[in-house]
């Protein structure tokens, strides 16, 4: 996938600045790295279609999601972009399997078959034991994996993850990092992963895009970026 976006932003932390981001991503995990307020989350939201850039172009595979020059701006629903939110956003009035089944679309499918597929997905993430639990009765790690399972169940072409491990303790984090890597290797679609944690970036990333105050400072392999990074952390 390929993204080029420009957007003027008002941020309460650093006044207003312009987001100017361009990068390409293939099969693998692309880390969006930077301080808070650098524009990482906004970039994700632009790719998902939650916010509209002032100008630019977003392409995923053969599909153009956004092109200001040709006035193309697909709705969120049409974009086939999975999103794992920072606080997971699991629907509190649905069980884990109902959450995961929610995004599964099969024309003419009965609820039963969608739940079946949801259970298969949960099994892949080793979540069978929580499938009938509500989010508030699940641990942080279980919620995170459920959120990822839900995003993947909707058969996306791209997955966005917004600091998904920031709320988990270090021990669970290590286990979850492996899960994310394994999940990506299973589906073989681009993952765009936002974090400000260097360790995560090094463990997970196929490439790293460093953002600072709205613009891209560096793109490269984790080893390159974190050994001779121009950015102080």
């Amino acid at each position, binding site marked *: 996938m390929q993204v080029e976006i420009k957007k003027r932003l008002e941020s309460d932390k650093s006044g207003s600045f312009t987001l100017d981001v361009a990068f390409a991503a293939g099969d693998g995990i692309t880390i969006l790295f930077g301080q808070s307020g650098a524009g990482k989350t906004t970039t994700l939201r632009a790719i*998902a*279609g*939650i916010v509209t850039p002032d100008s630019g172009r977003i392409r995923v595979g053969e599909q153009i999601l956004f092109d200001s020059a040709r006035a193309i701006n697909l*709705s*969120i*629903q049409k*974009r*086939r*972009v*999975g*999103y794992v*939110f920072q*606080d997971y*956003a699991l*629907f*509190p*009035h649905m069980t884990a399997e109902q959450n995961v089944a*929610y*995004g599964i*679309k099969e024309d003419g499918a009965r609820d039963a078959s969608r739940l079946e597929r949801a259970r298969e997905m949960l099994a892949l993430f080793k979540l069978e034991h929580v499938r009938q639990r*509500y989010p*508030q009765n699940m641990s942080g790690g279980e919620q995170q994996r459920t959120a990822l399972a*839900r*995003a993947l169940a*909707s058969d996306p072409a791209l997955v966005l993850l917004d600091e998904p491990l920031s709320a988990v303790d270090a021990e669970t984090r290590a286990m979850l990092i492996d899960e994310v890597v394994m999940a990506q290797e299973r589906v073989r679609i681009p993952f765009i992963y936002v974090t400000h944690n260097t360790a995560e970036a090094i463990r997970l990333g196929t490439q790293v895009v460093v953002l600072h105050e709205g613009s891209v400072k560096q793109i490269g392999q984790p080893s390159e970026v974190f050994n001779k990074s121009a950015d102080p952390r």
Partner: protein
Amino acid sequence: MIWEPLKLSLLVVTVATLIIATLGLALGLLLAKGRFHGQELLASFFTLPLVLPPTVSGYYLIVLLGRHGLIGEPVYNLTGWSVAFTWQAAVLAAIVLALPLMVLSARAAIESVNPQFEIASYTLGRSWLATFFRITLPLARRGILAGVVLSFTRALGEFGATFMLAGNIPGKTQTMPLAIYEAVISGEDKRAQILALILTGVSVAAVYLTSKLTKGAIKY
């Protein structure tokens, strides 16, 4: 002559509440999610009947819908029918007076739902309509139900506007509140007390039932 006004009240209030629930929900949604010019003006307009004395609202209603009214006259000329002095007028009066309560409650309830949930639903490919019914509505359920109960009880006690537009016609438009008023004015204290007791009983039952229904709701 106790059952006539009771039957009429139940009919009028049931029809009115059904219409208020759907219309109020739609308007609440519009005001909660809409971003258009004059939005707050529209909101204030719908809150008006809450602020005006019901008799004044009723006065405006009959001025508008009576046979010489802005809307009523053309309708009458076209169909020979006028809404004044019919039970439908009682429904209309109840709607006008109780709708604001539903709209305010629905709007607040919908606004209280974390938009993150709705966005998550969109990213999972669900339409705005499906998201409203499967995510927003269930999560806003308690506030919306409160709005329905509020407007139900308001419609049940509606008097001033009902009288102006529907008249106080025993057997045809005399709802419980009107029957109570007439009993008091005519010195029929016993009848007034019985009617008032029944009305209170119905209202209390309605509120109690609703609180039982929402008792089992998960706290988010």
